[in-house]
């Protein structure tokens, strides 16, 4: 962990941080064993090896420390969170003298995916695609309209307040705006300690000591315990938000654009911190972002969303190397690459027009109004299919696409 970018930490701090985590998790001598019988399991090695970490320490630790398997616990690489046909519609009303319910805004409109313990699922898309709403609905910060969320195999979709509170122990959130999500009138210590007070948990050694350990772990100076959020820079504030999120040792963290407000050099610090914490605490991330480069860097699997639906869901390299959905292809081809020679050779797939309204999404495939393949490559009969039939997401387990005419792009997109 010597590569942690912040000041105030020396390698000597490491044992202290390590003992923090072992206080709540008993190291198991059992070697990593992943049951292969589960249909959704991917080989964890793919996940680990594909991320060529320069820091051997963190890469090695990822699977080395195991939590003692409790009854309801899930092994690394197994499904911890399963979402089926999740919908979140926001009600609207008509205009007129007497108001009636009108067509709702279909922010999230039937998405299904599973998240495996220890992995990062990237949720990517442009503004208005419903990715943030999906993240919030996942944590039931928003009440789902329909569909189910299963956590550790148990349906928690309509959990009562008591269950929900217990669930919050295990599922947390990191927000985008490091300015708006921290109460400016509370000290950093109070903010990070809040989860303990809310859940009525007394950590060993007292809350203050635990909070200071957390601050140190995320790269903040524990002496700044009594400072207020405005005394910190954007990157440091995001660290505060992260410390608060990991305080209760959650299993799952939904990160909603956690680095998009930060400068690139600071963004890298926070991304690295998130990766280190994931290794250390065996965290599972659902990482919501619009930045396709960050998503490629941090995710194991990626879901591309458009108008409330998942267009393509694949393992990270599959998605970036072999995108099959025309929207994914257009999205990837739009990202400028910091490499002028390569950039000059690239051919952009430009999307025409604007995002349609999520109140009246296009019929059939919601993307057909802007789809280059629909416009250029399809026969009249094929087009009719796009405008009338909603494509079902299907395909191999590691690469699923919601397109009637999925296929590789005509030009290299990256």
């Amino acid at each position, binding site marked *: 962990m010597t590569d942690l970018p912040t000041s105030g930490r020396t390698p000597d701090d490491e044992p202290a941080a390590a003992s923090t985590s072992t206080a709540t998790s008993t190291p198991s001598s059992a070697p990593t064993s992943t049951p292969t019988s589960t249909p959704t399991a991917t080989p964890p090695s793919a996940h680990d090896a594909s991320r060529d970490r320069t820091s051997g320490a963190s890469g090695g630790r990822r699977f080395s420390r195991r939590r003692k398997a409790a009854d309801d616990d899930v092994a690394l690489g197994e499904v911890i969170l399963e979402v089926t046909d999740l919908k979140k519609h926001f009600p609207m009303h008509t205009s007129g003298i007497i108001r009636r319910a009108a067509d709702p805004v279909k922010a999230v409109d039937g998405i299904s995916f599973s998240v495996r313990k220890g992995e990062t699922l990237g949720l990517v898309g442009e503004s208005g695609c419903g990715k943030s709403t999906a993240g919030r609905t996942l944590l039931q910060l928003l009440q789902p309209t329909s569909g189910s969320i299963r956590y550790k195999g148990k349906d928690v979709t309509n959990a009562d307040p008591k269950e929900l509170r217990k669930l919050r122990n295990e599922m947390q959130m990191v927000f985008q705006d490091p300015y708006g999500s921290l109460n400016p009138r509370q000290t950093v210590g109070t903010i990070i300690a809040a989860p303990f007070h809310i859940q009525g948990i007394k950590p060993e050694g007292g809350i203050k000591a635990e909070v200071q350990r957390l601050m140190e772990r995320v790269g903040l100076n524990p002496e700044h315990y009594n400072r207020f959020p405005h005394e910190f820079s954007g990157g440091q504030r995001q660290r505060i938000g992260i410390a608060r999120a990991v305080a209760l040792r959650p299993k799952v963290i939904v990160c909603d654009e956690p680095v998009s407000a930060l400068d690139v050099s600071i*963004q890298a*610090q926070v991304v690295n911190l998130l990766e280190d914490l994931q290794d250390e605490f065996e965290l599972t991330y659902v990482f919501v972002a619009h930045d396709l480069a960050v998503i490629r860097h941090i995710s194991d699997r990626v879901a591309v969303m458009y108008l409330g639906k998942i267009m393509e869901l694949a393992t990270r390299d599959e998605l970036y190397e072999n995108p099959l959905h025309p929207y994914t292809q257009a999205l990837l081809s739009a990202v400028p690459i*910091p490499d002028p020679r390569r950039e000059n050779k690239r051919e952009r797939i*430009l999307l025409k027009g604007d995002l349609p309204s999520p109140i009246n999404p296009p019929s059939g495939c919601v993307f057909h109004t802007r789809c280059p393949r629909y416009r250029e490559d399809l026969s009249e009969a094929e087009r009719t299919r796009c405008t009338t039939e909603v494509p079902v997401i299907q395909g191999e387990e590691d690469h699923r696409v919601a397109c009637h005419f999925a296929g590789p792009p005509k030009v290299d997109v990256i």
Partner: protein
Amino acid sequence: MSTWASADPVSSGALLAVRDLKVTFPTEDGLVKAVDGLTFDLRAGETLGIVGESGSGKSVTSQAIMGLHRGSRAKVEGQIVFDGRDLLKIVDDDLRRMRGRDIAMIFQDPLSALHPYYTVGNQIVEAYRIHNDVSKAAARAHVIDMLDRVGIPNPQKRIDQYPHEFSGGMRQRAMIAMALVNSPRLIIADEPTTALDVTVQAQILNLLVDLQKEFGSSIIIITHDLGVVAELADNIMVMYGGKAVEGSSADEIFYEAEHPYTWGLLQSMPRIDAVKQARLQPIAGNPPSLINPPSGCAFHPRCAFRDDERLGCSSVVPRFEISDEHPTRCLIPQAERRAIFQTQIETRTA
């Protein structure tokens, strides 16, 4: 290009020659040196990319060129020579007449940059008529034509709509139409695509490239995104703490970068085109204070290659030699820097 900038700004032949530009703001905590001695040339038809993080002084520079600091508490010193005239010396009204006509600006957030209570057409017509003695009807026809050229569909109808009735991408197109309505010789685009989605960004960048070819304007594009300048810029200047730290042709910044800060930027960026996602290498620490900048080289507290004993990084102020082809504000000898870049910096360029 043989040198970064010539010695004499007036005879340099550049459209815009900035010399030793300094912008300071008095605050309660002390004097903020937002821009501290900036020098560059921009030739007609060329695109200069200014890259930096928040607080690097890139936006302040653009506003200084537009003279937008006039009447504020900011103090602007140095020379900004546009077409042979020093913009810092001419009277307010002359400068005002040049704004929008010779130099136009595109801002980051088109929603807040457009007035919410006036139609898009009203605002663009106003920009046209302030510099051209034409009838309202003629101006309107011209503006409809401009809206059409920047790719706004149905411009006859769109011209009478308000900014909030436009999508983000359409709003930025309208901003571009407003900037181009007088065919300016210089366009300053300050983070023109930062607030936009990536597919819209691609549309807008494409549009800027096409329009530059058509209008022959010079462009200064200010951004934090190295990908954006890779696509647009001929030359790139990297700014850190109010100073230029490296200036070169666009290619060299990516393939022969010489400043440790530029290296840091290249290494801390996640890359969409990298098959192997190596751990990011952030730049340690935080951006420098603009009130009490670090002694010596402003970057030395965060620099992985500093060598106090041999080079005096914390005491000697490195220079930015404009007579160089690839000026770099660094005390490490050039040969060493090149060697470091070749051997130690993994920029992940293909």
